[in-house]
């Protein structure tokens, strides 16, 4: 299929997944703040930090408050990763491949976009935003479900799943980071009932609470980290996401699993092995935040490699020289 088309499909699902996860981010923070016994202990800058867009934020907003952090992440059209911006980008990408995706997918994406747009026009009270965030999550699930149920599971679908799973892996790791930043401020709380509440809120935001309970029962920080990073069966766990991303990548190229033909296959294969054979004790003892940082870096490299291998508008001459790793990029380049 056309490189441009593949790229648009990949980014359509990436942006939708991103919008869903931004909603989850804000949700986890809101939950944590509500459960916080000290109302002065409002922490919104960690949230902005974890999204990676803090420089832009500080330049335009200064000190983070609940109000401006939520506005920045939800409806700010100047922030390319706000929920509204993600939906605009997803829709523009989908519009350029309407003849490839199913009309049901287009219809759902269009409805999703209109819902976010109308919410942006009448933002209302913060209390009512909780409802909005769950609508965003639901609309994203619906789009994913429709994609799975109405589109050939061929090359285009694999690109869509690849984008979604890489995005989700990245965002789940960032969600764990939110907790890390908040822990820093309240180190005394470790091991207290309040700490348990925070971990539970984190699990809920990843829709992981019930599944975690079935697997581990009691809330224990290491077990939570293990569940969100290393679990093979939970669909928002980093390990699960990367295994399915790898399956799609290999389905696209036809390379047998366990071997590689281009850099992203190599990098993703290595990362999957690390997760398969790593243990939570190794990770926490080395430092969770450092580990997550490195993980996000690797995901960016994989994204860059996918761009270079499949999407880059190379000349026939350059392609004979073989692919090279591009600068890391978290957002869509070109268009």
């Amino acid at each position: 299929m056309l490189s441009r088309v593949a790229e648009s499909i990949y980014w359509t699902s990436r942006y939708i997944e991103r919008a869903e996860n931004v909603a989850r981010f804000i949700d986890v923070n809101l939950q944590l703040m509500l459960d916080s016994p000290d109302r002065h202990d409002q922490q919104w800058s960690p949230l902005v930090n974890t999204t990676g867009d803090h420089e832009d934020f500080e330049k335009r907003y200064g000190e983070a408050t609940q109000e401006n952090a939520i506005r920045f992440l939800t409806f700010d059209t100047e922030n390319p990763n706000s929920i509204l911006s993600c939906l605009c980008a997803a829709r523009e990408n989908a519009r350029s491949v309407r003849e490839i995706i199913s009309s049901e997918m287009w219809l759902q994406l269009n409805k999703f976009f209109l819902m976010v747009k109308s919410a942006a026009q009448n933002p209302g009270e913060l209390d009512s935003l909780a409802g909005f965030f769950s609508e965003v999550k639901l609309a994203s699930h619906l789009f994913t479900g429709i994609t799975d149920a109405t589109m050939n599971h061929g090359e285009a679908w694999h690109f869509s799943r690849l984008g979604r799973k890489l995005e989700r892996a990245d965002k789940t790791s960032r969600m764990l980071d939110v907790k890390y930043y908040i822990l820093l401020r309240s180190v005394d709380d470790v091991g207290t009932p309040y700490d348990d509440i925070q971990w539970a809120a984190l699990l809920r935001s990843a829709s992981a609470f019930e599944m975690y309970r079935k697997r581990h029962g009691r809330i224990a920080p290491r077990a939570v980290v293990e569940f969100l990073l290393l679990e093979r069966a939970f669909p928002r766990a980093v390990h699960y996401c990367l295994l399915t991303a790898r399956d799609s990548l290999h389905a696209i190229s036809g390379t047998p699993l366990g071997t590689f033909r281009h850099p992203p296959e190599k990098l993703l294969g290595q990362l999957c092995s690390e997760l398969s054979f790593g243990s939570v004790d190794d990770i926490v003892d080395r430092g969770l935040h450092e580990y997550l940082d490195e993980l996000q870096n690797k995901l960016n490299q994989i994204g860059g490699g996918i761009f270079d291998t499949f999407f880059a508008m190379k000349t026939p001459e350059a392609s004979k020289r073989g692919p090279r790793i591009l600068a890391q990029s978290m957002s869509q380049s070109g268009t």
Partner: protein
Amino acid sequence: MRFGGYEVGDFFDEMFDERGNARRVAMPLVKNIEALPAGELLSRQQAAERTLLQMGITFNVYGEQAGVEKIFPFDLVPRMVPAAEWNVIEKGLKQRIHALNLFIDDIYHQQRCIKDGVVPKDILYSAKSYREQCVGWNPPRGIWCHITGTDLVRHSDGQVYVLEDNLRCPSGVSYVLENRQVMKSLFPKVFSASKIRPVSNYPLKLRDMLEFLAPDAVSTPRVVLLTPGTYNSAYFEHSFLAQQMGVELVEGRDLVVEDGVVLMRTTQGFERVDVIYRRIDDDFLDPKCFRPDSMLGVPGLMEAYKAGNVALANAPGTGVADDKVVYAYVPRIIKYFLGEDIILPNVPTYICAEEKDLQYVVERIGELVVKAANESGGYGMLVGPHSTQAQQAEFAEKVKANPRNYIAQPTLALSRVPTIVGDHFEGRHVDLRPYILYGKEIFVLPGGLTRVALKKGSLVVNSSQGGGSKDTWVQADSSTAEREEANGHAAQAVMAGGVR
């Protein structure tokens, strides 16, 4: 809803004769509509609009915020064309396209028609769409104008005239196909009673025609549709036609030329392209050959084309024949190249470049329709009787300043078709754009886009200026009916079998 109080007025009405009786071709439809329970037609109209909305049958409007999509308004009451009348139209269009193709070929080669004084030389060279770069080129199979949409109108004298030739990138055919889809689901009974000729095999015909243009050495040609992108006003149509034909929809940046061959960038590497149905104007096709600032085109495309490694439809340079001044010479062009009289007449046209005509136009501007030679979409024109004195004076100055750029025609009383207005019918003016494909043979799609001026009294049917559309029902005569039924089934079978 009934036609009881419907006024035919001083116009030719496509559905009722001057005494208010339904024309023969419209009888089954009129009977069916009048038999509907009260409110049923309106609810069907709403159902049709809903369907079009959900299908996303939209167009973008220039001059408004980028990316604004609008629904092309649709009216349920179709325009009907009797079989005998259609046969004349079809013959006339084939004759016209045949002659225009010979004309274009001559213009870029020997220019016999200029040497023999049929078309004045200066008019040709001042035509904005004449392309010097195309001199001496030989398009595949000798065809320049593969896809044409010719605008027809009917005057109150009952005669059908050719109003305009669109030989560059005529749009609108997607609405013809979608409108028919909607109508078939809403009026299945009338369809079988009225013997309407099918239009649904157009994408297949189009693909056949495009494959016919491929270089000889290619056994299974790769056809693509080249679009300027999602911000183009006709983007929906590009995407729709690509999907219906089962070909890739590409943008300029997807293509690259190497060693005189056009390649497209795919996830599995570069793949060769043999035929391009381009929906980009000549100027933007290739920055190395035409406008150097074009970001939409493909550098080197014209080299590949001249080398015979890729076919383009329509051929670059074709636009010279849809210049509004060249239009005035078409009757003479047909006579010269084919030795025949024109079958479908032109609207009488005053050429402002000619002294005598210019004087007449300036004096009588209030009665005439004045058009800029190189504008389309209803822009750059003045409808005399519907304009103010000030507008007329202003336009007269424009014409005097640049006479070559203008033609004028008498204001036609375009025919009307009953149209739903609120809870009753009123006559609204229409034109008709049939689509013609020139491949192995010349094919005229039996139907076309009927555009309707929805504003009361308005003569401007363009979608950008408050126009809507109607389905066009061409009646089959007994011989075509049987033949097409068989073809239709064959076409359905092929579509169901899956097209790449």
